[in-house]
């Protein structure tokens, strides 16, 4: 199967964390243990939303060594495609669900002398697992976590309780800003920087790290983007001999799956490269939204990543 091996789980707990965020705990349906994982890994959650199959990636936030269950936190996105709303509205304890095995596209560099974590909002989730993993093995880290206000600072208290002054919280509405330039200038040699948060924060950290002269191999970003909505478009799948319309809240990958075409994927967020597909003909503009293709591939419109990218124009024919 294109998505790789699956885990059959049951929802054990649904906990409202704050106005926007709900936490879900999954346990193995057969009562056994789930695989251990590495901090930064995500799982792809399969949803059957009234006949529409949705597969959304979420970072695993629980203790990687706790094989009795996995936890994720989902932020409600009222303008999104519906995956987060489905999780918030329909997922209840006792429900059977299917998860992918953990996949890590945002791993710790275990050689680092020190790990510097920068989180914004729901971007805190991978760091919950990473800090637990490091605390267990005695790794050195510092976490800087920015949110709008204390009420939206999910897990701030428990992080403080567990890791004390290794955790720093910032609240935008109180005018606290994360002292990024200062932080980046006073790290010991061998420090690695990790950032997960909204796009604006990623860009800010990326340019600040470049300005401060950080080597690219020591700077890591959690890049996967949820597929965004867009205008519907038509696509022809040359090998399958099918022409489909991709709906406005559907990705090209989801449209292919709904048409019974077995297309490869792993992250469903434009980061892993697994879904890369050759473009046979393109009369129009591909809206490349992935982090995988090279700028040349994007400019020449010879490849597309169906998990996130869309199309505007007259004809798109792809090799699938």
């Amino acid at each position, binding site marked *: 199967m294109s998505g*790789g091996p699956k885990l059959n789980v049951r929802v054990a707990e649904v906990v409202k964390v704050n106005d926007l965020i709900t936490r879900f705990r999954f346990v193995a349906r057969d009562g056994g243990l789930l*695989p251990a*994982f*590495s901090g930064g890994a995500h799982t792809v959650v399969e949803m059957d939303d009234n006949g529409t199959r949705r597969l959304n990636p979420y970072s695993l936030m629980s203790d*990687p*060594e706790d094989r009795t269950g996995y936890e994720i936190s989902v932020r409600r996105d009222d303008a999104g495609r519906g995956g987060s709303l489905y999780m918030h509205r329909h997922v209840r304890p006792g429900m059977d669900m299917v998860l992918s095995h953990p*996949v890590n596209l945002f791993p710790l560099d*275990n050689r680092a002398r020190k790990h510097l974590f920068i989180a914004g909002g729901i971007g805190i989730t991978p760091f919950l697992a990473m800090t637990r*993993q490091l605390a267990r093995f005695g790794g050195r880290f510092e976490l800087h976590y920015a949110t709008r206000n204390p009420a939206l600072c999910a897990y701030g208290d428990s992080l403080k309780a567990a890791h004390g002054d290794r955790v720093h919280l910032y609240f935008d509405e109180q005018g606290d800003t994360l002292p990024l330039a200062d932080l980046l200038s006073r790290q010991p040699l061998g420090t690695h920087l990790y950032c997960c948060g909204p796009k604006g924060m990623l860009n800010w950290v990326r340019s600040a790290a470049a300005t401060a002269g950080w080597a690219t191999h020591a700077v890591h970003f959690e890049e996967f983007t949820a597929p965004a909505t867009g205008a519907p478009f038509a696509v022809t799948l040359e090998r399958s001999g099918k022409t489909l319309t991709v709906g406005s809240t559907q990705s090209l990958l989801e449209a292919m799956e709904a048409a019974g075409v077995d297309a490869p994927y792993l992250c469903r967020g434009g980061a892993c490269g697994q879904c890369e597909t050759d473009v046979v003909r393109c009369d129009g503009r591909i809206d490349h939204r992935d982090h995988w293709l090279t700028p040349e591939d994007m400019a020449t419109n010879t490849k597309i990543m169906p998990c996130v990218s869309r199309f505007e124009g007259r004809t798109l024919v792809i090799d699938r």
Partner: protein
Amino acid sequence: MSLDVEYAFDEFFRDETFVDDFTYRNSPAAIRRFPFPFDRDDYMYSVNMEPHVPGRKGSVFEKTFDVDEHYVSEMRDRARILAKDPLRCQSLPHMTLAGWDLLELIMESKAREYPQWFSLTKNGDRWRWINRPLGIDHSFTFLDETTLPCGPMEYITRQTQGDFTLQDEREGTLWVDAGMVTTQADWSLDFDIGMNFHEWHAPVPLAHEKGIFDRALKFLLKLQHGAPVRRFNWTMTVNPLLDTAPETYPEWGYMRTTLNQENMGHMMHLRVELQALFRLPRSNAIAFSIRAYLGKFEELVTVPKWGRRLHRVVRDIHPDLAAYKGFLRNRDAMAEWLSSYDDGAPTSPGWWPED
């Protein structure tokens, strides 16, 4: 390091040597299950990878880590080599967690697949491991190195056939940052450690130009936990030497000059490596197992299909491959010996002996 073992040879586990008097051989049953690597009459490099799922019953693909009649003797040979050259086993400091992942993978697999020989019982983090063929009964704390006589990778690979390397994934490539390598076909862990995928493959001819390593790496970076893959590699070895290392070349290199038509059948061995790749859960590293099987020419030709096919592959192989694999000088003599087992009849596709 002190790992107390008591080698338990019996009717199944053969007491044999891989040096000096070379008493290694395959039983008739082991010949039938030999992983003959050629599924057609010719050979060239390719991205030959398939899911590592249980294969035919009795075959070397049936279990995650095949344990065969050579197990106990191979483990004794590994201990011998490590005593002489401890650098055959190395693990950079950041790879200890990957070592624990590997220990867990092997112990859980062996206990599940070979309950007659291995057992693992867990009480939280307190684990008890029993390895009957090596006489080991040991309790330790998972993820606590102080409770093992040596590092976790060394501990478990002293009890598992085949070489192992552990690759860290960084910067879009794999780095060989740990390994246990005592059964290698002329490459050196001590030389390669810390290199990346393209660096350690640099000596291989033709494959770079064909884009094989670019595609193989792209595939491996997406390897998922729970979905291991496997591939074959092969070479030729004179005498049943598991350890053909560059470090010991003076001890075995000259043996290649002693071949003739009379001794070819029992001295020349097809060396097949069954390689499997596993994504590890806690470290996100990739474990690579390289399990070497040695088959004497005279053993392999007892299967008529293999005799015919081996002759054709050796006769027609690209000289750069024969040179890289170290048998160019003997290639014609090998083909001559094998030719009397090739009547020119067609061979069936696939590698199984019977069909």
